């Protein structure tokens, strides 16, 4: 169930959001999904880079920005103006959470350090998402999400076994997952604040958090003294298990056979050598993994992906498409489940975007609201949150504090 007014478990929580690009906005997007009022602070001198990710000249024509900033309210403030720190402090005094992911030292240079915020509001939960962390010998490194994939072991591991060159992924995977962890940390900090009455400072350095995402494999390395082998798409204890080509170009099916009974069903579908006694039980299939994979591959190459998936799922064999963007946009389950919904945007028109992956039975969530235009809510937020009068707003605009 969804509503037009901000609604959800975090309704009543107000976030002052200085984050930009991916990790920070994705974190505050989760809060907006659950009804928090997220006030996104930009400056016309320094807009959120995701507004121009596609090289678009019109900063309102960025669907990636519209995707990650749904439901937020946008204000533009010249943060370098002499009056900016005072204005921000007034806003922060009425907020629950402040978030930022600037390079280390930027907030401090703006006069907006943790001590300043907690002096005006000791209950504030302040969240920093620095790339490398605000301390440590490499805290001054410049690093984007893809660099961090390399730094934190993901690029090395995200490969087929025996790959000569580590390819990893082109995605900014870590930005999103760190964003989710940031949201969980904020929700946890709210619960602690209820107990202690005090705010706190959270630092989720993307490098450290990201390295923890490989926690089980790091633990394996620590305990056994040797890294576990890179497995790519293989499951070490299930054969066959992996990614198999279909008849259409660049169409793939992920498949995994959980036990011997599932293999028997798959072998019957494939026929021929697949039904050989040597492969009937797992130990045999493990010994002959390459041959089993070759048999499966030879079969899947003759099948259209949808036909193949239908056969496999009907036979109770674990299989799923290696989904493309088109697959996801048209996925009936995601649409029917309300996970992909249309959103109206004044410049982009009506577009389908992903929405929250969460469903609350009793608490309606806010219906999909679009991302803010640059500075769209400046006057309204300052009126509603600070009680600013028209004269004050005009004065702030005239002196260049507001943009």
């Amino acid at each position, binding site marked *: 169930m969804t509503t037009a007014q901000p609604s959800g478990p975090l309704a009543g929580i107000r976030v002052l959001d200085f984050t930009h690009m991916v990790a920070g906005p994705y974190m505050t997007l989760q809060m907006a999904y659950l009804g928090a009022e997220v006030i996104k602070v930009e400056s016309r001198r320094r807009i959120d880079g995701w507004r121009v990710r596609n090289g678009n000249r019109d900063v309102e024509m960025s669907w990636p920005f519209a995707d990650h900033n749904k439901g937020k309210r946008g204000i533009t403030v010249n943060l370098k103006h002499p009056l900016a720190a005072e204005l921000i402090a007034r806003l922060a005094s009425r907020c629950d959470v402040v978030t930022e992911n600037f390079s280390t030292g930027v907030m401090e240079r703006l006069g907006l350090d943790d001590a300043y915020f907690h002096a005006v509001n000791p209950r504030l939960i302040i969240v920093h998402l620095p790339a490398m962390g605000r301390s440590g010998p490499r805290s001054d490194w410049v690093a984007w999400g893809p660099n961090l994939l390399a730094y934190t072991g993901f690029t090395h591991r995200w490969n087929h076994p025996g790959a000569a060159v580590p*390819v990893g992924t082109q995605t900014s995977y870590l930005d999103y997952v760190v964003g989710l962890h940031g949201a969980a940390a904020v929700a946890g900090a709210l619960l602690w604040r209820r107990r202690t009455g005090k705010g706190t400072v959270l630092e989720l350095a993307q*490098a450290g958090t990201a390295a923890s995402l490989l926690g089980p494999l790091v633990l394996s390395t620590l305990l056994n003294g040797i890294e576990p082998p*890179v497995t790519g798409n293989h499951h070490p204890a299930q054969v066959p298990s992996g990614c198999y080509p279909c008849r259409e170009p660049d169409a793939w099916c992920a498949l995994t056979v959980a036990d011997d009974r599932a293999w028997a069903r798959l072998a019957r579908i494939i026929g021929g050598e697949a039904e050989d006694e040597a492969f009937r039980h797992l130990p045999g299939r493990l010994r002959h993994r390459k041959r089993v994979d070759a048999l499966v591959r030879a079969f899947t190459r003759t099948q259209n992906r949808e036909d193949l998936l239908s056969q496999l799922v009907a036979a109770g064999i674990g299989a799923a498409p290696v989904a493309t963007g088109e697959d996801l946009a048209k996925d009936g389950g995601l649409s029917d489940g309300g*996970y992909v919904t249309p959103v109206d945007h004044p410049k982009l028109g009506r577009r389908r975007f992903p929405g929250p992956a*969460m469903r609350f039975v009793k608490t309606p969530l806010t219906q999909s609201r679009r991302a803010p235009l640059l500075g769209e809510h400046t006057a309204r937020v300052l009126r509603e949150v600070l009680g600013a009068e028209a004269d004050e707003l005009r004065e702030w605009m005239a002196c260049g504090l507001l943009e």
Partner: protein
Amino acid sequence: MLGLRVIEWVSPAGEYAGRLLADIGFEVVKIEPPGLGSLSRRMPPLWDQSGEGVLHLYCNARKQSVTLDVSAPGGDHLLDCLLGRADALLMTSDQPVDPSELARRHPHLIIGVAQSFPPQGKWGTLPAEDLLIFAAGGLMYLSGEPEGEPVCAPGWQSYIVGGAQLAFAMAAAFWSRPDRGAGGEVVYVCYQAALAAQENVISDFEGRGHSTPRTGSQHRTAVPGRVYPCRDGFVHFMVSNAQPGSWERFLEFLGNPPELSDSRLKDAIYRREHVDAVDPVIERIFADKTREELVTGAQRRHLPCAPVQSLTDLCHDPHLLARGFLDHAVTSSGQSYPMPAPGIRLPDARDIPMRWAPTLGADNRVLKESADLDDTTWAALAAAGTVSK
């Protein structure tokens, strides 16, 4: 601790969510089948010393373990006893009791349900295998060589993503329901949807009319923007329009090669269109430099460059170590073992001990106390296979 108890009743797909809740400060009591316990105890890679799965050892640190087969005689009643004394239930959707039925029986509970796929979709009944969820989530198609087989992320990332989403949702539910009197809530998190929301995969298709293709490690807009081999390994380098002046600094770093003197290359979009002319020059220059030379030189010029590190590198990385990346966990008998630090560290939760993952049924007293069971009754239940001996 927060003074809130979560009963965890999950397949391995839900265990990371429980670990995050424990890191936040919840008391997490894990229900495991008598006999063999959670499947994650047996999933490779295994710890050579004990034969236990590292997924279990990592995800089930900080938790307590009780054994209970809910489907065995008296099992359902014991589940009710546990839930009656708890504040929340974390479950995967493959358990044999419907969450709405549990909500009816225990209206005070916050119930978090991990669903691999939307139940009304084609994949709704698929097993919660990481490979399948990750494939259906859209990121696997984007990973790997353009002409090659897509590759799944390492280390059960669908469980990590879905688990983080679920931990957030459950903590938020607790925020909105400060006490039992406010009544409970049931929150469902769809792991496929959580993955599909990432990377602008859907909105890029909607915007461009075609799916984002697989490009190896090559970034969509940055050049340099991928993994480059060097003399002793690999580095990842990125120079984009997001950093004004970075291309000029990069040229200086390379020694101003004449092949890259075209002023049009200043624009990253133009460079991306001519990557086949730009990258060979970079590769040639990088080939006889070490990882250290490249990373140090780049960072001195505020250029985004990082070494491609292995897990071993991580365990010795001076920056990560200085920031407390490695911690220790202690068993119930006082043995200490190394443990990576958790993904989120709340200052208020800093004093919560890092307990090693429990042995199977180590905390059965929790079940006994919840159900007020004496030893005779327990023995009978064990004989029936409902609990462990």
